[in-house]
């Protein structure tokens, strides 16, 4: 399976994502933001980091990069696109997923392990996943997901919420919400479920010496689903 990771100026999880995808069997290519064309890919990843320094608004300048036209076309034709952290912010700014990401509720960068509940498994990203609650890792300053009530209704009606922040047992509540996201939303899909944006970094949880191994479960499952 072929994947491509886009490097924007200021991306800093591009290498980590490359390591993870390669580890689990993807043939990965790094793509420069200023390129026009995407290599032939089964999965496009917009990695984490601080594209354009997060100046103006997180993800806004990167969403106007040359390569993004191709990414948008790829997504609209049904191709799989995943945005992690800053990649999620870029997806939001590019209009590929609904809503916005505000500054964390407590106005601080947060770097820690969190649990997320996977609700919707009728999609390529989470299909056949045998765990309901995954332990992931977050590291962000602007991950506070927000949308209008109408948007929220639409998102819920279409089953677009991918993962929720929750406790060990899958309970979602305010206490467990790390950044103030509406409904504890940690990740969402587009309507068609071929685009996923999420704040947690599965690529930081890919071996037992790191913060955990649930990222391995995610990537292995994803590869099997794409095959």
């Amino acid at each position, binding site marked *: 399976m072929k994947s491509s990771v886009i490097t924007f100026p200021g991306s800093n999880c591009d*290498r*980590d994502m490359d*390591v993870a995808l390669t580890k689990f069997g993807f043939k990965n290519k790094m793509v420069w933001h200023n390129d026009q064309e995407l290599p032939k890919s089964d999965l496009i990843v917009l990695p984490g*980091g601080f594209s*354009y320094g997060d100046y103006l608004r997180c993800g806004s300048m990167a969403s106007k990069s040359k390569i993004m036209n191709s990414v948008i076309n790829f997504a609209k034709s049904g191709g799989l696109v995943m945005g992690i952290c800053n990649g999620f912010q870029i997806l939001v700014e590019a209009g590929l997923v609904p809503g916005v990401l505000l500054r964390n509720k407590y106005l601080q960068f947060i770097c820690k392990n969190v649990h997320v509940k996977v609700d919707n498994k009728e999609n390529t990203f989470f299909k056949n996943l045998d765990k309901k609650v995954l332990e992931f*890792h977050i590291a962000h300053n602007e991950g506070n997901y927000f949308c209008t009530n109408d948007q929220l209704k639409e998102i819920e009606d279409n089953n677009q919420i991918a993962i929720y922040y929750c406790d060990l047992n899958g309970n979602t509540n305010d206490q467990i919400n790390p950044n103030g996201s509406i409904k504890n939303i940690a990740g969402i899909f587009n309507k068609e479920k071929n685009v996923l944006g999420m704040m947690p970094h599965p690529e930081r949880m*890919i071996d037992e*010496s*790191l913060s955990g191994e649930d990222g391995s479960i995610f990537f292995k499952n994803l590869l099997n689903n794409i095959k």
Partner: protein
Amino acid sequence: MLVDEKIAIEHGLKTDEYKKICKLLKRTPNITELGIFSAMWNEHCSYKSSRIHLKKLHTKGKKVIQGPGENAGVIDIEDGDAIVFKIESHNHPSFIEPYQGAATGVGGIMRDVFTMGARPIANLNSIHFGSTQNKKTKNLLRGVVHGIGGYGNCMGVPTIAGQTSFDRSYNGNILVNAMTLGLVKKDKIFYSKAAGLNKPVIYVGSKTGRDGIHGASMASASFDEKIEEKKPTVQVGDPFTEKLLLEACLELMSGDSIIAIQDMGAAGLTSSSIEMASKGNLGIEINLNKVPCRETKMTPYEIMLSESQERMLIVLESGKEEIAKKIFDKWNLDFAVIGKTTNTKNIELFFDNKQVANIPVNTLVENSPMYDRKWKKSKLPKKNKIDKTIFKNLKIKDTLKKILSSPNVCSKEWIWQQYDHTVMGDTIQKPGGDSGVVRVHKTDKAIAATVDSSATYCWAHPLTGGKQVVCETWRNLISVGAKPIAVTNCLNFGSPEKEENMGEFVECVQGISEACKYLDYPVVSGNVSFYNETKDIGIKPTPTIGGVGLIKDYKKMITMNFKEIENIVLVIGKTEGHIDQSLLSRLILNENNGPPPEVNLFNEKNNGLTLLNLIEKNFIKSAHDVSLGGIITAISKMCIQGNKGIQFKKPKFLINEIEYFFAEDQGRYLIEINPKDFKEVSKILDKKSLIKI
């Protein structure tokens, strides 16, 4: 503007220093030249009060590739790999403007490391604030933590360990010491020594603005009530540009275009160009009209003294300009050929077709002032006679609670959760342990790093304190299973013009040197920060040591959390009950006098190497060194992190229980082992002091 003595003094120079300049030049300097002299001759850049003593540091060792004198130190970690590392202070700017001060401190130290061709792989910091009761502390803490995170997080370099302390003596002068480690191939290290004639001198990175002018001079003076006026001397950081600069420099370094490279840190273009020329024994000619400027009508004086961040100076091989320019264009960075190397051994500056400065390089460097300042030797304070009945009235539980909840002992999670400590995907020990540990990417090796200082011990007796700090970092590394290799030091002191402060400095340096020599743990880089004073009140002497060690097989790394119930816990090292200068003494007994615990280097080395041997033999389940708050504080941390309890055997104490639990004797570790290994371990340890979980 005509230069006279008065203007020289306004530049922070002393009368005799000004006279020396006139004598060296055989004329009166013009204002640009005076600015250059003041920047090169201030304490921060010239080390004029410390140089004579720093020579005594132990800096040699089998693993040392580059000792002090370059942008950073370099050590060998085998297989052709090397670690580049250094610690640096950004104290003065951080007190004036905590966010930008701390941020640019982190940015500056990372530049020092990647200037040498190394990709930064870990950041650490040691930050010290005034009393938690002081009304400024909260804002300063918040600003500094945001600043460190703001810069390091954006760069995508994990912040893996640190130290935070609170003490009244920092009320008017906080300390912000930032350390960076980078990874490089041994045969791809870059240095700042220029070579060859007529080689192009290249300016890359951000544009030059009017920020940070006289930053280095500001950092070479004490504070007074006019401190707010110094805000414009603080630089403004742009981590995004630095990230681009990092990637662009590493890309250029993968080829063979660079002869020498130097970042523009303190004293900006002045010190970078002069250092490169000085090391290469060459002259350098710069056309200041070619320097990319952010603001209009900048004068030669301003251009030379600006401390705008994220800039580099490079001496290129002739004919490589196009290759280099292409790379910097790709990363959207400024690139300009601003001059060339010459055989004049002078620095010559041109502006609007006129020569605006012409100074022999050696007058700025070798002929810079060096002082052997007067210093006062300190005596070892007398031991306090503590009335043992006081101990009887102390309840262990209440005392422990007070100690665990004191700001210098309690968990610092609030701080390190704001730092990205997992980016780069190789952090295998997070903050909160004895050392941070990162894997060497795609190998079985890992690098452990720690940073520490014990101002209270140094204040009580600088010589002992200096030794103790080195040993503390040595222990922190051993506790995670790393073999200590080398250190970097950041020496934070008050005014060197006071005999007491100078004495503290001299004796701390002596202590550091003795310990480093004995432990074969050399100093490879560092910096000195004097004048940490406000209105005549100085800080406690605070030498900060950053230690680096190697774990050959990262799967053998040790953490401090208790692993399993029914395991037994042993103490390595002797507990004699030293209470003076302990947290118990200061916090509970309100007694601030007395000597710090003695440092016995023989025991220190012996105990440490023994523990490493036990770790190598796979006996150790968890380990933690005993420091602030004594055995019971250390054990509590192991319990809390491991979510376990501990049951003490009724020990046959030779000393009072309180003394046993809270004493801060040095050279001790707590280890957890499986009961089945007890005999074997005992044989190796040949020690007692048993406690059982």
